[in-house]
């Protein structure tokens, strides 16, 4: 299968990158993160400690916009450990416009007292260490965190993830069925977080809170694993 071999290559590439960064980084926190960033490629997904990650930002452009909150929820394919969740509100490096305020329910007053990203970065990296990050749409989380870490430490920050949106895209966009659907002129199915959850009969959650979305993403991955995979499916199959 073409896809599987590509994933395997992806995984090997990530293993090389992570090992390299662990060796060369000047930041102890980054080193701790990279040291434990990837399990062995054949590890069963049920055995992998996962960390659902969601950030809320002032906008979509990582060059112009900034992170305002980060939510982390540790989990496995069996259990989501909500009690060990982490959540930070962050003072953005750019002005908070009124649109994003209404979107996140984070107010100027919340922001006033919030720490800057660089202040919480060691805590954030510690919390993520030992877990494989899980996101819905990796482009946003990766690009904003890369930008913020680069600003804080002068080093880039790339990391492997399991992307629940990519899993949906692969199932519902690039499958034979999806291509037939496309040829018949039907619009492609939505792979946004909420719409994806509906396909697995997951309940509706009020979106746009980093922790709610992180929880929602963790539940979605559990549902995807239960529906499309097996507990012993190797982790490399998921990783991008």
């Amino acid at each position, binding site marked *: 299968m073409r896809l599987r071999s590509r994933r395997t290559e992806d995984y090997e590439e990530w293993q090389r990158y992570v090992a390299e960064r662990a060796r060369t980084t000047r930041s102890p926190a980054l080193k701790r993160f990279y040291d434990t960033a990837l399990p062995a490629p054949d590890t069963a997904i049920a055995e992998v400690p996962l960390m659902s990650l969601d950030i809320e930002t002032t906008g979509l452009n990582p060059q112009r916009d900034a992170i305002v909150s980060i*939510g982390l929820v540790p*989990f496995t394919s*069996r*259990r*989501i*450990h*909500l*009690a060990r*969740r982490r*959540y930070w509100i962050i003072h953005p490096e750019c002005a908070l416009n009124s649109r994003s305020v209404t979107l996140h*329910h984070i107010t100027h007053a919340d922001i006033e007292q919030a720490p800057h990203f660089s202040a919480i970065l060691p805590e954030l990296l510690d919390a993520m260490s030992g877990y494989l990050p899980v996101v819905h749409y990796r482009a946003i989380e990766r690009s904003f965190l890369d930008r913020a870490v680069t600003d804080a430490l002068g080093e880039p920050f790339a990391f492997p993830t399991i992307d629940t949106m990519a899993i949906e895209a692969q199932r519902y966009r690039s499958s034979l069925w999806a291509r037939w659907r496309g040829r018949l002129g039907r619009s492609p199915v939505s792979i946004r977080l909420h719409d994806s959850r509906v396909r*697995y*009969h*997951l*309940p509706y*959650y*009020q979106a746009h*809170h980093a*922790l*709610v979305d*992180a*929880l929602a993403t*963790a*539940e979605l991955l*559990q*549902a995807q694993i*239960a*529906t499309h995979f097996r507990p012993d499916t190797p982790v490399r199959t998921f990783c991008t």
Partner: protein
Amino acid sequence: MEAELLEIRQHMGRFTPFDRIPDDLLDAVVEQVEVSYFRAGSDIFELDQPIDHLGYVRSGAVELYSRSGNLYDRLGEGGIFGHFSLARGKRVRFSARAIEDSLIYFIPRAQFKALCEADSHFADFVELGRPRLEAAVEAQRKNNEMMVTRIRKLVTHPPLRIESTASVQEAARRITEAHASAALIVDRSSFDSRFTYIDPDGDPWRVLGIITDSDFRVRVVAKGLSPDTPVGEVTGDRFVSIQSDESVQEAILCMLRNGVHHLPVMHRRQPLGIVHLSSIIRYETKSSVYLVDSIYSRTDVAGLAALMPEVKSTVVRMIEDDADSRMIGSALSTIGRSITRRLLELAEQELGPPPVPYCFMVMGSMARDEQSLVSDQDNALVLSDDFNRTEHDAYFLALAQYVSDGLAACGYTYCKGDIMATNQRWRQPLAVWKGYFRSWIDRPTPEALLHSSVFFDLDSVYGDNRLVEALQDLIAEKAPKNELFLAAMARNALGRTPPLGFFRGFVMEKDGQQNNTINLKRRGLAPMTDLIRIHALACGSRAQNSFARLDDIGQSQLLGPGVEAKLRAAMEFLAISRCRHQVLDLEQGREPDNRVEPDNVPDAERHNLKDAFQVLSNAQKFLKFRYPLPERTA
């Protein structure tokens, strides 16, 4: 609380038992929730696996199975599972499987224990405290003790207050404008006075007295006083009032003792309102006592039938006042008996005195004092042994016909099985009746008893009650000794079984089928009454009422410890539940019936009904074992 937890908290707060626990406890639980997704068909808890969490269905549906593999329950959104196992041990006792794609919240054992310790409602619900059905019935009973109506219930609005310096004319004008017939006379007071109360604006006042319509005649006009006389000068020197938590009964006595028609109702020193004698009378006329009294003053069938709407409103009011099923059943039976008695009096007036003594006998719910708003008539005539068919029967047929038609006119429908005194078979002298009962008891077959078991709830309503007592004696004497009879009765009692419970808008059957409605009489009350009757017969009880029978059964130690209390709670819950649903039918403009639609069953009641069904089901199993059918007739 953070938004993502709010999401969980709000959901849990909507469902029993979490809807009743205090906020801070709920917060502490939500903090520790774990989450897991289960695909349709996958196991959540397997039998005998160690258990450390309570399960909560956030979305989807879950089925529970007992060790023998039978369906035990089907849960939808908000349902909890695992509490029996958590409460009693460390291993799963009922396996759980998702039957739809489900999201489950798990509450760790420590939080579960903390909840049980901190909140008695929760402990009762998961049966770590008392069995939850008994707890629910107990809570109901406590309400009941409050049932003596407090006089404050009759206060509809705050009293009109007039300052003592106002003129009598001014006072008369303001009383007229307020469409009142009395006002309190007050004056400004100092804060420290013993008689001071503080009004909503924070000002101190003192109540000097009351002025009523008649005072203007007696104290003002008759004495020729000027309209400018300050009202404070004409109020009486005696101020009669009553505290708001006194009973209506006490208020009536207070009015009689003091010769007043207006009674100010006070909460300590604060006046709440003025109650007039007429509103007390209006209130009292809705009570069953008043109703029974007016039954005896009716002079024809039409007059009796005209009272039936009041019967309905009496029941509605009793339900509103949290009366228990026994009070309601007894009130309705008393009304039914009184109507029957009155019809017999009217019939005798028309037909002349009876040629030989007789007793009018009722069976079924009226005999048990357990009538509901939906009743048919089961009655019979037990005649003196001096009865001579050719000479006397025409009279008794006419009598039976008069009563039966009269009852039908009052809404007690004719018995479909023709168990009525109009049927010659059930209009017989005592000797024949004794023969009937002897043959039912001595030569029972389930088939023969199927249609005659209704005769084992029997009571006299009118006439020479010794005739019916003779039959009750015969039953109490013979039944306990006859195993075959008890076994045949028991077999009939197993014909109707309860469902498992509810699931979403459906009634869940034990085989997993779902129905739209449940007949609470056929599937609950009737089989419950049947099995109580059998135990009562077995222990020689002469009681007819199910709760009175349970008292006798409890004395006899026929059942295991605690079983009688469980049966009592289940019986009470089934009965009160049917009654509430009949009142709901009335309120929604439908003809009351025995059917219950699951959508009309609130969450807490669902759990209690399910428990009652379970008690009934277990008791039926015991019945089979306790009164086995001997081999030779099986």
